[in-house]
C-alpha cells in the first residue's frame, strides 16, 4: 500500500538544473512552454528537440525514470499521432490501402504536433523531477507576489502550502495505519462490490478527519503561542539565491528562441 503512495517525484542529483533557483526554473519552463509554439517546420522542431534532449541529459535524471513516469501521456501522444495520420486530409496521398489513405499533410501535422506535445511534457516533468515540492512552493510564492496588489492572500497561500506539504507524509502514515487496522478486521478497500467499498470508506474517513481537526487546533494554538501574526516582516529559513547558473540557463533559452524565430517559415 505504502509503496503505491510514493509521493512527489523529486530525484536528488548534482546538476545545473538542480542547482538553479526555483524562481528561475519556473520562469524557464514557463518561457519554454511559450517558445515551443514558435516552431513550425522540421528545422525548428529539431532545434527544440535537441535543446530539450540536452536539458534532460544535463539534469542527470535517469531517462528510464522520466519515461516511466510518462507512460500514460505517451499513449496520448501516440493517439494524437494516429488521429492525425488518419483524419487530416491535406497534400498528396502517400499511402493507400482499401478505405485507409494517409496524406502527406497528415503525416507532417501528426509528427509535429506529437513532438511538440512530447517536448512540453518532458520539460514540465523535468521541473518537478529536479525541484523539491517545498522549493516549488517558495518559487510560486515569490512569483505570485505582484498579486498582493489586488489583495490576493499570497503569503497565507504559501504558508498553507508549506503546512500541507509538511503534513502529507504524516497524514499518509495515519491513513496507512487505519487502513491496515481495518484490513485486519476484514475490510476490503480495493476489491468487492461497489456498495461494500463505499461503506469501507466511512470508518477510514471519520478517524482521519477527527484526528486532523485536533491536530489543526493544536498547530493553531502553537503558532499563536509563538506570536504568529501573519505575513508582515517575517523572515525566512530558506533563502532564495539567484546565481550564475540561472542567468546562463535563461540566456541559453534566449539564444534558442532567437534561432527559432530565425529559422521558422
Amino acid at each position, binding site marked *: 500500500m505504502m509503496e503505491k503512495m510514493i509521493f512527489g517525484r523529486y530525484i536528488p542529483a548534482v546538476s545545473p538544473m538542480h542547482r538553479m533557483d526555483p524562481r528561475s526554473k519556473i520562469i524557464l519552463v514557463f518561457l519554454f512552454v511559450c517558445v515551443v509554439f514558435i516552431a513550425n517546420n522540421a528545422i525548428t522542431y529539431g532545434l527544440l528537440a535537441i535543446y530539450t534532449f540536452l536539458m534532460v541529459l544535463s539534469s542527470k535524471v535517469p531517462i528510464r525514470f522520466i519515461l516511466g513516469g510518462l507512460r500514460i501521456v505517451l499513449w496520448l501522444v501516440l493517439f494524437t499521432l494516429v488521429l*492525425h495520420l488518419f483524419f487530416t486530409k491535406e497534400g498528396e496521398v502517400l499511402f493507400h490501402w482499401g478505405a485507409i489513405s494517409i496524406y502527406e499533410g497528415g503525416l507532417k501535422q501528426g509528427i509535429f504536433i506529437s513532438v511538440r506535445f512530447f517536448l512540453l511534457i518532458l520539460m*514540465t516533468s523535468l521541473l*518537478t523531477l529536479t525541484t523539491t515540492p517545498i522549493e516549488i512552493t517558495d518559487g510560486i510564492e515569490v512569483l505570485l507576489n505582484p498579486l498582493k496588489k489586488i489583495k490576493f492572500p499570497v503569503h497565507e497561500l504559501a504558508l498553507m502550502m508549506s503546512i500541507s506539504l509538511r503534513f502529507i507524509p504524516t*497524514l499518509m502514515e495515519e491513513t496507512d495505519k487505519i487502513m491496515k487496522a481495518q484490513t485486519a478486521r476484514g475490510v476490503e478497500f480495493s476489491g468487492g462490490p461497489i456498495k461494500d467499498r463505499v461503506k469501507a470508506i466511512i470508518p477510514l474517513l471519520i478517524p482521519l478527519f477527527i484526528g486532523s*481537526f485536533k491536530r489543526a487546533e493544536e498547530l493553531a494554538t502553537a503558532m499563536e503561542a509563538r506570536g504568529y501574526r501573519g505575513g508582515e516582516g517575517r523572515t525566512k529559513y530558506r533563502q532564495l539565491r539567484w546565481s550564475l547558473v540561472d542567468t546562463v540557463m535563461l540566456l541559453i533559452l534566449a539564444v534558442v528562441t532567437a534561432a527559432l524565430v530565425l529559422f521558422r517559415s
Partner: protein
Amino acid sequence: MKKLGLLAMIEAAFFAAFALILDLLPAIQLGPWISISFAMVPIFILAFRWGFKVSILSGFIWGLLQVAVGDVYFLTPIQFAIEYFIAFAFIGFAGLFYKPIQYLLQNGEKRKVLQWVILAIFVGSVARYFWHFLAGVIFWGEYAPEGMSPVIYSLIVNGGTMLGATILCSVVILLLLSNAPRLVQRKGIGAILGKKA
C-alpha cells in the same frame, strides 16, 4: 480581504493535503479516462464547516499541491492553467450553502440538511467539472484533427466523471453526516449564527 482565522487556514491546508492523498487511493475505474474518486469529500466538508472563502482557498491549494508534487497532465498552457489553477478552486462553490447547512444542523433538522448538502455538492462538482470540460474542449480543439467534435467528446468524459463523483461524494458525505455530524458542526458556531438568526 478580511484576514482569515488561523485555524481556518490550517484546516484548509490539512484538507487540501487530504484531498491529494485520497486521490491516490484506489479509485473506482470505469475505463482509462473516467475514474470516480471521492477525493473532493474533504473540500466539501471544509466548505460546510467554514464557508465559501476557506473552501475556495483549500481547493486552490489542492491544485497547487498537484503542481508542486508533479502529479499533473500538461497538455497545453491554457488547459494547464484552467485545470490546475481554476478548476480545483471552484469546488469551493459548495461553500455558498454553508449558512443554511450550519443553521439546520444546529436546529437538528436532519432531513433538510441532507437536501442542502446534496445541492451544495452538486453545485461544487458542476463548478469544477465545467472547467475540466472547457479544458478538454480547448485541448482537443488544439490537438485533434478537423471533423472531430471536441465538445461532445469532452462532454461525455467530463460529464460522466462529474456525475460519478457527485453521486459517490454525496453518498459518502451523507453516510459521514449521519454517523458523525460533528465533522461539519463547528464548535461555538451557535453563537455566530445566533446573532444573525
